[in-house]
């Protein structure tokens, strides 16, 4: 059974069809890329999966659970985490707090225990803080643990966003343009990094990307979107030579 099963997913924004009839099956431990020109509906697909938008039509099943109609925090709790195209860290909070916040669903104490700092509060807080610091040191950003996250350099902010997503303990990680604003050298490092987190944290990864270098380098399968419709799907080599894809990216006339 696939881990994520998307069937006939469609979404309209007041008449504009942002995504139409999108289908995708993700097996456990797969690394699949969604590509397509600007405005093709890639990020909308992510927003539909994570519950930011409610799909107009279709089904999304994750590990046997229907996701359409669930709230984002419930979906995250089920095991889907994501990053954002334009980094969305909690800027005025410390790097450590950014990661600790993502432990929200795992803290096993009641509001009353929180108000009085009694009962399970102390042990749970220690567990969360230790786990967050451990995660930060695995990502080699623990030196900045008590800095405001807005003061981190750009590359580390991207890393922190991934660390924060992993703190929710996901099975499926959605990466929205992880290579945005990176030079070729940094992209090579990022490819290694994505492979490494997939192995270390036993993740299934779905990523959106513009950078062909990255997508062709690490994705096992690709789905190509254009104007909300799936125009191609398959292995990276097949996609590379698919005339429809070239047309979408480069325009019709050049292809001939």
């Amino acid at each position, binding site marked *: 059974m696939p881990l994520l099963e998307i069937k006939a997913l469609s979404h309209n924004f007041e008449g504009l069809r942002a995504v139409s009839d999108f289908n995708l099956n993700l097996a456990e431990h797969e690394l699949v890329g969604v590509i397509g020109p600007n405005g093709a509906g890639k990020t909308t697909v992510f927003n539909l999966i994570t519950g930011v938008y409610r799909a107009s039509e279709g089904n999304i099943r994750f590990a046997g659970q229907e996701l359409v109609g669930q709230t984002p925090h419930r979906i995250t709790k089920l095991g889907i985490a994501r990053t954002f195209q334009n980094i969305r860290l909690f800027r005025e909070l410390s790097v450590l707090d950014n990661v600790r916040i993502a432990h929200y669903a795992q803290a096993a104490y009641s509001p009353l225990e929180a*108000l009085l700092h009694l009962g399970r509060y102390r042990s749970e807080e220690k567990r*969360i803080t230790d786990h967050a610091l451990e995660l930060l040191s695995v990502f080699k950003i623990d030196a900045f643990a008590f800095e405001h996250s807005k003061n981190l350099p750009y590359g580390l902010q991207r890393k922190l966003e991934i660390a924060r997503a992993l703190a929710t303990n996901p099975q499926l990680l959605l990466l929205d343009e992880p290579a945005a604003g990176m030079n070729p050298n940094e992209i090579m490092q990022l490819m290694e990094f994505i492979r490494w987190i997939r192995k270390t944290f036993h993740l299934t990864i779905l990523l959106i990307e513009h950078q062909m270098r990255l997508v062709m380098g690490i994705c096992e399968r690709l789905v190509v979107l254009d104007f909300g419709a799936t125009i191609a799907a398959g292995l990276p080599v097949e996609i590379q030579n698919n005339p429809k894809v070239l047309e979408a990216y480069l325009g019709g006339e050049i292809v001939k």
Partner: protein
Amino acid sequence: MTALKKIYQSLITKWQAITEYRFFLPAFFIVGLLFCIVVSCFDLMDQYIQLILMYIGINIILTVSLNLINGYMGEFSVGHAGFMAIGAYIASLLTIGVFPQSSGSFFFPLAVLAGGIGAALIGFLVAIPSFKTRGDYLAIVTLAFGMIVKSIIENIDAIGGPRGLLGMDKLSTLPWVFFWTALSVWIIRNLVYSNFGRGVLSIREDEIASDLMSVNTRQVKVIVFVVSSFFAGIAGGLFAHVLQYINPRMFDIIKSTDILIMVYLGGIGSIAGSILGAVIYTVLLEVLRPLGVWRMVFMPLMLVLLMIYRPRGIMGLRESRLFTPISDLLSMKFHRQKKEADNASS
């Protein structure tokens, strides 16, 4: 110059050591409470000064609790006086009508608590619909709420209507105000430094990201709103028994604005700031009493200047070490030492 620097440095280290001492805050609480009991029993202080101190305490409760919504959570509530009114009327009706007058001081904490619970229940009812949608609806809802509370009270003749309510004994004493103030500061501090508190902060920073990081944003908002209105109710109960007279006009939008000024003066998202704001504002209002009506010109002017030159208030988003949990302070210290050791070795 260097001598001064040295003194400053040693003071800083001493302060750091004090704040890392587990029993400092409890000791401060007990000493403060004993001091208040002695002062009020033997009348060691001028009655007027005692009255100002009680107002300061009540204003601290109001400011800290409103800061939870406006500062920590980044929403905008302007109906705090409404919750205060609910607490004031419930507590007063209980001490006048229900509890025996002869042992009034014995039942007084119960009456105040009942006022707080009443306000919290109403707060819960207000929170449920207003947090169903995202955005700035809270300001409008709470504005309307404040007006509704005022006009409901004005139209119930049994509780005095627009004439107000009197007949309460002067049950708010310095020790009681100190106790409730310390309790509210402690509980709100605890809330802020917990899982839910971090959820509150993340809502201020980025609500959608917060939801996607598994924070149950609606649950967090409702908890915060209920806790905040609870303490507004407590403050109302205390206030009514200091003044021994309440009427609906006391709890209008002007009162809510006063609390807002204290929050933004002291600093959003800071407990130390809230205390500072409440103290400065209350004392300034008294000091400037000779100015008469001009006092009411000075205060808004101060707010305007504040917004221009220090939009986040005196302490804005910073917290005194005094209110940071010791476990956090220690892990920060440990972290710094490790970093220094790493630097030294490399």
